[in-house]
């Protein structure tokens, strides 16, 4: 059959026809204008991802060649934004290495030096400030985090009757955050570090809901780092600057520890409460501690997450 246009409505005279057409045209025009107006804020969208970034493949599918290109893109972008040429590396886990952190709760005085050293090392946003380490002030006798004070401000620490418990990503052997990520943007590496591909994360924040240690942080807005504070020694899965809308967290300072150095939080600790090393090496300090100390606490052991972060006491 042949398609026929619907004939004009029965009561149509030429005049009302043109009036109706005019009204339709006006409505369509008004609608389009309103649509454009409501989308107007998008004009401020500055750093929308470049097509290179948009099309970038998943980390584990990048060939060495692709990686070189990705790294030079990141270096270019950082230089453009901060005026500093960074040194970005894609450091791989080393064979025969599994990292473990031990934290001596008898020694920790709650000075929060680690918190700030971490922010400086890992290029976190300063406004709003993102911190990976949260220090809880706990009343003597309890390991129940519900009793912890997160916002203590004291003229001098330690205060009597309290101990201090810094919490950061526990690098779980059985990490719930990895399990829930719908796009595999976060995974556990051979050396036990759970990392995030900031270029793959879609920002759904499911991992943040899943982590039993409240270790994950989200970039709710574009991170702001003063140029002069930028740490130019960067790793792809580590401290390179993040974008708005992606997840981040402690990664045991990948850019340092995979290059044979200690994490920044350990180096800054004034009382030596923090110990870090390779648990597969029987000579390492952490192996020694695990052999010699009587009690270790894995936070929320009953979760079955099996943290690689151990708390212990001297006496």
């Amino acid at each position: 059959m042949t398609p026929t246009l619907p004939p004009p409505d029965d009561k149509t005279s030429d005049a009302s026809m043109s009036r109706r057409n005019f009204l339709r045209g006006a409505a369509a025009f008004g609608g389009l204008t309103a649509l454009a107006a409501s989308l107007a804020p998008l004009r401020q969208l500055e750093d929308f991802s470049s097509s290179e970034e948009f099309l970038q493949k998943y980390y584990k599918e990048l060939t060495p060649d692709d990686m070189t290109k990705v790294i030079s893109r990141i270096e270019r972008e950082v230089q453009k934004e901060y005026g500093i040429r960074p040194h970005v590396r894609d450091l791989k886990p080393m064979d025969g290495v599994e990292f473990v952190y031990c934290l001596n709760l008898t020694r920790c005085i709650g000075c929060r030096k680690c918190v700030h050293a971490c922010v400086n090392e890992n290029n976190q946003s300063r406004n709003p400030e993102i911190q990976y380490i949260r220090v809880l002030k706990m009343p003597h006798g309890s390991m129940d985090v519900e009793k912890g004070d997160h916002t203590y401000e004291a003229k001098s620490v330690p205060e009597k009757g309290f101990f201090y418990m810094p919490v950061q990503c526990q690098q779980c052997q059985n990490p719930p955050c990895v399990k829930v990520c719908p796009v595999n943007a976060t995974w556990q590496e051979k050396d036990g570090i759970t990392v995030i591909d900031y270029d793959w994360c879609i920002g759904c924040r499911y991992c943040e809901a899943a982590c039993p240690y409240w270790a994950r942080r989200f970039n709710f807005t574009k991170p702001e780092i003063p140029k002069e504070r930028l740490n130019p020694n960067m790793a792809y899965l580590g401290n390179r600057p993040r974008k708005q809308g992606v997840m981040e967290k402690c990664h045991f300072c990948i850019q340092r520890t995979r290059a044979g150095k200690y994490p920044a939080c350990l180096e800054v600790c004034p009382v030596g409460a923090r110990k870090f090393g390779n648990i597969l090496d029987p000579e390492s300090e952490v192996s020694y501690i695990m052999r010699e100390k009587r009690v270790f606490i894995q936070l929320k052991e009953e979760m079955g997450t099996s943290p690689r972060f151990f708390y212990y006491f001297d006496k």
Partner: protein
Amino acid sequence: MITAARNYMIFIRRCTRIAFVGDWRYYAWMGLLTVISLLGLNAYAKQLVHGLIVTGMSDEVSWGVYIANFTFLVGVAAAAVMMVIPVYIYDNEELHDLVIFGELLAVAAIIMCLAFVTVDLGRPDRFWHLIPGIGQLNFPRSMLSWDVIVLNGYLLLNVHICGYLLYCRYQNKKPGKWFYIPFVFTAIIWAVSIHTVTAFLYVGLGGRPFWNASIVGPRFLASAFTAGPAIIILALQIIRHYTHYRITDKALLTLRSIVQVSMIINVFLLVCEVFKEFYSGTTHGVSARYLFVGLHGHHALVPWIWTAITLNLVAMVILVLPVSRSLRWLDVACVLSIVGIWIEKGMGLVIPGFIPTPLGAIVEYVPSLNETLVCLGIWAFGLLCYTIFLRMSVPILQGRIAKSNEGQPEIQGDEPETAPVADPLPH
């Protein structure tokens, strides 16, 4: 082949046309919804520029009203199809023609769900990472990947069923059983699955004791089967009022019995949950305590949840009493249960899961203005879609847009029917 395609194009064109004509009330309603949708779009554009910081969410409460609305609407979508059960399993004639309105509601609800998930993403530009093949869908480990699959599948199923039945109706052809009955049954099972999977999204998180309870799944279903049919009861009456489409009271009363039973189960499960959280007195119940009575001087959610409980109880009482056989009371009960369940599923389920945080900090959450506008925008857009779907399907079901009257003067949509076409939707 070509003729078929051409016929289909005419069908689409006529449907599109009818969506744009109507009397002043229709224009006013659609205009209002469009304006609200655009306000929401504007708010979302701002969020795209500045990030999710324009919402009330934080690292402590990392999901808010977006996910709350999503959760509620998954329930609506699931329940809309539940109407199908009495029709196909018990051969309930009264509801027969009305199934399609339920399925269209499901389609509109899923569209809203997908919109709510999208606006919650920090990087919506990377949505393609979710597409199997080119992206990296973490299936079957991540419950969210299950949700992506079941929601999209459900959307396709319902679009197919509605589209097929309506097009057959338009051509005045008997629908081929094999083209839709298997889909209808799949859709019924699928409806249960979308809601169960969404519940598992929460239940699967061991670090959040408030969600990590097996009762969450059954409660989701019970509340969905209350709110979903309640919405349909209201929608059907609106259709009846504005379109001369014949819907019997008996059909509405059949739905009433679904709402009635579900509401009783819903309230019972609530009692079970409250008992477990409070009587045992373990520290696991802190989130529940925060929700129902407040914690250390923080009680933002307390008025909400008690409002919800009151609404649900009043609705339940009305529903079990014979008064709800009168439509006026039934409507009251429906409105009360919809609002009550919306609060309970949203404010009452999603938010307290985050308070206190796993490290014991209490940070409260209040949706921001921008966030609220985005939500209103999505709701308005969903209603806009549903209105358009009804606008197209009602005249088709009435036989006033049909292949046989192609080329004749087009209807304006709501003039009283002159020649009522009596044959019911082919079974």
